[in-house]
């Protein structure tokens, strides 16, 4: 199924390389999560367990914040659900590219579908059809970095909290810029991206907190679809 890549590197190695910027971002953010979880009173085992079975950056940070504040269990779980609802859109957007995948492979893929791995896959699938080993290697490498960062943070508990001098806090922002840019292949795509960005900021300030990304994405993608279907008639 895979298109042979020009380089002779094995597929999984390419996947590891694609995850490099994610690793740069996940190590410090995972570390920060580990420190916060430690301060919130979670055991190191629970802190690492959450990174293994939840694997969702912002939701984990919010989750341990709520635990520290003594929020009820159900409200923590519902908040997690709302924060991660945007992944439904990403999961749907990737689905046309995974037509020949077995259900168990889809299950394994979805488990490690984060904002960042999605961004890498979406940019890849937009131009090529990466091998399955590449896709899984990117996901696994990313999660290993996330778990390692969490564990180090929980173990170090605030020895090193300042990663700013290295600009590491910008790794994921720069990655999103690069992955967005390579997808902007025509003016309509640029328009949709600009609209989504502006709406997201606008929705944030009118109080759509947690919903701004989903709402902006839905409106902008629908507008793009309407324009494309209208002009191609």
């Amino acid at each position: 199924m895979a298109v042979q890549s020009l380089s002779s590197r094995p597929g999984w190695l390419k996947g590891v390389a694609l995850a490099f910027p994610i690793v740069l971002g996940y190590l410090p953010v995972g570390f920060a999560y580990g420190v916060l979880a430690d301060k919130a009173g979670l055991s190191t085992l629970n802190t690492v367990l959450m990174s293994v079975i939840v694997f969702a950056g912002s939701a984990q940070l919010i989750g341990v914040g709520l635990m520290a504040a003594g929020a009820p269990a159900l409200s923590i779980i519902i908040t997690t659900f709302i924060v991660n609802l945007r992944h439904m859109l990403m999961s749907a957007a990737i689905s046309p590219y995974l037509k020949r995948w077995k259900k168990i492979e889809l299950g394994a893929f979805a488990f490690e579908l984060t904002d960042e791995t999605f961004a890498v896959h979406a940019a890849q699938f937009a131009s090529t059809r990466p091998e399955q080993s590449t896709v899984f290697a990117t996901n696994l490498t990313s999660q290993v970095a996330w778990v390692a960062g969490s564990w180090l943070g929980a173990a170090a508990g605030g020895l090193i909290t300042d990663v700013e001098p290295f600009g590491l806090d910008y790794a994921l922002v720069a990655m999103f810029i690069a992955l967005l840019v390579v997808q902007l292949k025509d003016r309509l795509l640029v328009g949709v991206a600009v609209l989504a960005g502006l709406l997201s900021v606008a929705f944030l300030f009118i109080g759509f907190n947690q919903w701004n990304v989903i709402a902006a994405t839905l409106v902008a993608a629908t507008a793009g679809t309407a324009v494309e279907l209208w002009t191609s008639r």
Partner: protein
Amino acid sequence: MIFFIILGMALATYLPRLVPVWFLSSRDLPRVVVVWLKYIPPAVLAAMLLPSVVVAGDRLDVGLDNLYLLAALPTLVVAWKTRSLFVSVLVGMALVAAGRFFLGF
């Protein structure tokens, strides 16, 4: 107790990631849906990205004192020219580190 909260969080995270790809990947979707899904990746990336560079704390910051925004523009140009994820990320990080080191951000 914490363990069960984590288990609940895992389920609340996994279901939204799993359900769409599980049910949609084996189906032939109508053209309008395929077109719509094509616009989701750039839309959702932009919707996550823009607030992260123009919102500082809880206010809009599009001034020259916003290092994240200042670094975003050259990073965007580098990404456009090189099409390289690796180079773009290193340039972005270097700009932010340099801004802090040399310009006192």
